[in-house]
């Protein structure tokens, strides 16, 4: 029997990772990323002559937990047709037995990279509102994302915002297709802890608990999700994650942390973050729309529901909102006074 050197082992491993696309319409282009379940490649759809992203499991088989999760993810995506949710094109099994699905190839940057180029708070808040749109749509179709974080948001070259990676999605009720519901196991899923750099230091974990699986990202995961209370998770868990995401967009950290020098987090925005990420689900916004509404009100210079303003704050907000007219009237009055003084001199 032939002795295999360490180098040969490496080559065999590399060769074995490549998916067998024989008999499919796809041609492999390049490896994009590795996730918890498998690898994402860029591939060319030979029939439509377009680039797609192909997500494929490492291990063959259609009846394992990971295969079920990947198939379910594809079906959830298929049920969520929204401009803010990456569309799925195809799902199936490759000749080598591995389950795969293809989706739109998204060019652009992950949110955490993208915001390095977006300095203004209002622009960041507008991105956040588009994320809220997509998540609210999913909630309306009875789907929770359960892993909202900057690494799972892509911003395209034309500013389009896409919520990705619905592998942990939970289906709450019957609006989605029956296929997606069938394969919704709240069963234990084993997955090795994975290190992921998000804004420098966040770490994705998975912990198997007695009554479900804890999967998500510390800092973005709601307390109830972190406890593994899978059965009782509802929209408020995603609202928590959105609140953490909002705080990340504004401060660079999903949890309360000092704001970078030179920036002051407005009390209203801080209150919106605090309300979204309240420890008790009942104290959070009742829906993503309500959260988005408060952020929109802030952008429009209106009072937000999360924060009771003092008279001084009200006056300050009134001034900021009508600054132009106030200054115009003030200038007019100053001129009038000056003219009167000049006439009566």
């Amino acid at each position: 029997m032939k002795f295999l050197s360490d180098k040969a082992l490496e080559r065999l491993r590399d060769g074995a990772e490549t998916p067998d696309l024989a008999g499919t319409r796809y041609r492999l282009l390049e490896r994009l990323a590795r996730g918890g379940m498998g690898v994402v490649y860029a591939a060319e759809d030979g029939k439509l002559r377009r680039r797609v992203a192909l997500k494929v499991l490492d291990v063959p088989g259609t009846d394992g937990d990971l295969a079920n999760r990947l198939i379910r993810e594809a079906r959830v995506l298929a049920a969520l047709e929204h401009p803010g949710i990456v569309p799925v094109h195809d799902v199936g099994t490759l000749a080598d037995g591995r389950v795969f699905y293809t989706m739109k190839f998204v060019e652009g940057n992950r949110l955490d990279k993208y915001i390095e180029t977006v300095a203004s708070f209002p622009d960041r808040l507008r991105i956040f509102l588009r994320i809220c749109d997509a998540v609210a749509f999913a909630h309306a179709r009875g789907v929770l994302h359960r892993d909202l974080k900057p690494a799972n948001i892509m911003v395209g070259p034309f500013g389009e915002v896409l919520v990705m990676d619905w592998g942990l999605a939970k289906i709450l009720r019957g609006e989605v297709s029956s296929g997606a519901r069938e394969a919704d196991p709240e069963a234990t899923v084993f997955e090795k802890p994975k290190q992921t750099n998000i804004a420098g230091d966040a770490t994705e974990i998975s912990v198997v608990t007695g009554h479900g699986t804890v999967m998500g990202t510390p800092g973005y995961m709601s307390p109830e999700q972190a406890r593994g209370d899978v059965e009782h998770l509802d929209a408020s868990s995603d609202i928590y994650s959105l609140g953490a995401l909002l705080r990340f967009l504004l401060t660079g950290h999903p949890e309360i942390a000092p704001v970078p020098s030179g920036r002051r987090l407005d009390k209203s925005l801080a209150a919106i973050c605090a309300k979204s990420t309240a420890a008790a689900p009942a104290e959070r916004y009742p829906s993503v729309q309500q959260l988005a509404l408060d952020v929109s009100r802030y952008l429009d210079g209106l009072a937000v529901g999360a924060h009771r303003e003092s008279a001084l704050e009200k006056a300050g907000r009134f001034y900021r909102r009508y600054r132009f007219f106030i200054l115009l009237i003030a200038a007019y009055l100053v001129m009038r006074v000056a003219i009167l003084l000049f006439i009566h001199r």
Partner: protein
Amino acid sequence: MSEEDFQHGGDRFPPTRRSVIEAVRSIDAEERQRALEALCVAYWKPVYKYVRWRWHRPADVAQDLTQGFFMELLERELLEKFDTKKSRLRTYLRVCVDSFVSNEDKAGRRQKRGGNVLHVALDFAGAEEELGATVMDPALIPSPESLEEFFEKEWVRSLFALAVEDLREMCVARERERTFHLFEAYDLEGSEKISYQQLSKEYGISMTDVTNALAWARREFRRIALERLRELCSTEEEFQREARAAFGWDAK
């Protein structure tokens, strides 16, 4: 889409067969013996090298200990105690090897074993050569991590070598020796200097043929290695975990 749509490649992956671990616990003595031999085929080399490396035993003693260990597994029904939820099979076997060698030392003699015989050809001379070619850092000895890492690496080497041998036999049976030679030259020799173009010139075939032949060989290698691995695992979860470890998918 029906579930059948996901069975496209299913014919190439037969349903999970009875695993070695299940078979080794069978009440049928013959089945137990066969399962143990399958286990021995996959693990004897890592065990032998481990005894030589970790326990510094001379070749002849290590050979005897290796054979004795697999007989002990059968006679003392050690695999009955293995729980896939608590540990990985190779970790369990490694701990059993440590315990076995340590007990042999305490006894001060090699124990006489029962009438069982393993019908597995163990190429100890080949294993010795491999041991000489294996790069090891003696400074790491004897940290537990290095022992685990050593045993795991040798287990992967053994698994892959068996799969390569199966692939070679399959290529011979299907008269695809050239495909195996290409695979051997490019993937197994590990030479940086060889390119697809050179192979195409050397074998007088087109670059496309080289690419296709290598792609086929790699696919078949992967399939065979995973099938061998599946035989050694008792649950789907264990198989997934072991496949990820063997192919380094967790580390990438």
